[in-house]
C-alpha cells in the first residue's frame, strides 16, 4: 500500500543517509530523530486526540531522569535504565492524566503547564541528586548497550533511527486502529462519541499515557545517546518545542512531527549562528502558524494533494 511505502521509505532514506551525510549533519539528524520521536508522542495527544498539553517536558524529563538517575545512582545497565525511564514516563503521565483530564480546554493547558513547572522546580530543588540546571554527564562507559558503545556517532545514529522508526511505525499503526479512530472522533466531537457508547475518559487517559511514554522513551533515548541530563529539558521551553514542531509539520499527520522537527531544528541552528536570541524565530513561527497555517506543512499536503494521508 502506498501509505506503508511512504513511511517505510522515510526510514530507508534515513538509513541510507547514515552512509552519505557529512559528520555535522549526521550528528544533527541523530538528534532530530530522537526529538522527532518526542514530537510523535506529543502528536498522539494533541494532533489526534485534540488535547493541547503545555507540560510534556514533564514526561520527556521523566524518561531522561528515570534513565539517568538509574545509571548514576542505582548503577543500572543501559537497557534496564531505559526501561526505568519508560516506566517513569508511564507513571507520571498516568498520574497527571487522572488529575488533568478532569478539566478541558484552557484549564487543561494551564494544569499541564503548572504541573510541569512544579516538576522542573522540584528537579532544581533536589539539586544534590539531580545537579539541577547544570546537569550531569552520563559516562561513556555506562552507555555501552550490550557491548555497543552508544557514544560512537555511527552507533548513535543507528540507535536513534531504531527509536524513531519504532515510534513512527507505532504511531502509524495506532492511528488506524479502531482505538485511534475513536481518538480522532473525540477530537472532532467528544459528546457525540460518548453518546455512541464509548468511554471517552478511558480513551483520553490511554492516549495521554501512550503519549507520555513515547515522550519518555525519547527523553531516555536522548540521555543515553548524547550522554547528558539537565533540568533545562524539563523547562517550559521543552514543552513548547513539541507543540511548535507538530504545528509546523502538521498536527494529526504521522509524518508531520518529523517534518516539523527537522525544519525547526535547522531554522534555529541557522539563526543561532546570527544571534543569541534565536528563540525569536520560534516566537515568530508560532504566531505565523496560528494565524495563517494551523494545519501545518503535511496538513497542507493532505488538504491539497493526498486526501488519505494518515
Amino acid at each position: 500500500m502506498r501509505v506503508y511505502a511512504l513511511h517505510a521509505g522515510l526510514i530507508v532514506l534515513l538509513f541510507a543517509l547514515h552512509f552519505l551525510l557529512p559528520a555535522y549533519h549526521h550528528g544533527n539528524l541523530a538528534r532530530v530523530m530522537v526529538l522527532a520521536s518526542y514530537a510523535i508522542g506529543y502528536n498522539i495527544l494533541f494532533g489526534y486526540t485534540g488535547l493541547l498539553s503545555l507540560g510534556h517536558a514533564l514526561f520527556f524529563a521523566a524518561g531522561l531522569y528515570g534513565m539517568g538517575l538509574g545509571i548514576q545512582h542505582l548503577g543500572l545497565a543501559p537497557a534496564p535504565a531505559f526501561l526505568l525511564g519508560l516506566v517513569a514516563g508511564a507513571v507520571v503521565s498516568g498520574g497527571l492524566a487522572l488529575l488533568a483530564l478532569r478539566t478541558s480546554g484552557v484549564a487543561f493547558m494551564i494544569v499541564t503547564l503548572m504541573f510541569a513547572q512544579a516538576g522542573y522546580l522540584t528537579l532544581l530543588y533536589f539539586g544534590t541528586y539531580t545537579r539541577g540546571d547544570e546537569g550531569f554527564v552520563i559516562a561513556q562507559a555506562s552507555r555501552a548497550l550490550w557491548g555497543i558503545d552508544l557514544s560512537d556517532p555511527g552507533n548513535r545514529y543507528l540507535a536513534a533511527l531504531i527509536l524513531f522508526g519504532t515510534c513512527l511505525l507505532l504511531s502509524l499503526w495506532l492511528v488506524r486502529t479502531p482505538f485511534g479512530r475513536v481518538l480522532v472522533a473525540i477530537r472532532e466531537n467528544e459528546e457525540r462519541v460518548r453518546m455512541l457508547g464509548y468511554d471517552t475518559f478511558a480513551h483520553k487517559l490511554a492516549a495521554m499515557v501512550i503519549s507520555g511514554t513515547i515522550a519518555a522513551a525519547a527523553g531516555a533515548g536522548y540521555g543515553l545517546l548524547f550522554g547528558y541530563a539537565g533540568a533545562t529539558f524539563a523547562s517550559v521551553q521543552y514543552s513548547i518545542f513539541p507543540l511548535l514542531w507538530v504545528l509546523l509539520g502538521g498536527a494529526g499527520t504521522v509524518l508531520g512531527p518529523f517534518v516539523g522537527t527537522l525544519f525547526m531544528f535547522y531554522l534555529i541552528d541557522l539563526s543561532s549562528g546570527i544571534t543569541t536570541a534565536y528563540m525569536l524565530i520560534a516566537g515568530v513561527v508560532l504566531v505565523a502558524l496560528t494565524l495563517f497555517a494551523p494545519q501545518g506543512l503535511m496538513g497542507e499536503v493532505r488538504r491539497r494533494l493526498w486526501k488519505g494521508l494518515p
Partner: protein
Amino acid sequence: MLLSTRGLSKQFVGLRAVDSVDFDLPEGEIRALIGPNGAGKTTLVGMISGRIAPSAGRVIFDGRDVTALPAHRRIALGMAYTFQITSVFARLSVAENVALAARRRLKGSAVGSAVEAALDRVGLLPRAGQEAGDLAYGHQRLLEIAMGLAQRPRLLILDEPTQGLAEGEIEAFKTLVREVAQESTILLIEHNMRVVMELANRITVLNFGAVLAEGTPAEIHLNAEVQAAYLGGVSDAAAG
C-alpha cells in the same frame, strides 16, 4: 417493559423541568413523546439516555436499574440516541461517521458491511465518501439515523428527526421508521403531528414537565386537555 421510569424528576434553580414522571415503554412499540415547547421532553429523554443527571427517580432499562450508569454504559447496553441539533462528525466522511457507530460492536470486515447496510437503508450510500459537513441538512439528519441503525439498538431514541426535512424526505422517513420498528423499539420526540399520528402506536403527552395524557393516537386526538394544552393545534394538524 423495555424501558421504565419511576418518579423521574429534574429540578433546575427556580424551575421544575420534569416532574415525577412514571413512564413505561414495552418492547416493539413506536412511542411518540409530544408536548408544547418547554414541556420537558428533551430533558426527560436526556435523563433516560444519561446525558442529564436526574434530581430524583429511577430509570430501568431491560430489567436493569441504570440510574447510576453513565451515558456511554447505557448506550452500550442497547440504547441509541440521535441528536436534536445534528451532531455528526463534520470533518469526517459519511462512511467513517457510521463506522464509528458500528465499531463499538463489530470488528474488521463486518464493520464495512454494517456501514454499507445502514447507509443503504437511509439512502445515503452514494454519498459515503463525502465529508459529513458538506451534506445538506436533511441528509445530515438521515446520517444521524444511519448512525443509530448501525448500533443495532434495542431502543432507538429519535429527537425531532423530521425537523427541517422536506415533504418527500418525511415520507421516506416514515417508511424507514416502520421498517426499523420491526427490529428496535422506537421513542420519538416530534412536533410534526401528522408524522406522530401516522407512525405512533401510543403517544405520551408532556406538559409543564408532567405526563398530561397517554394513549393511542385516536384517544389523544379526542383528549380535551391535550387540545387545550396545544390551543387547538392537535386537531388542526390532524385534520389537514
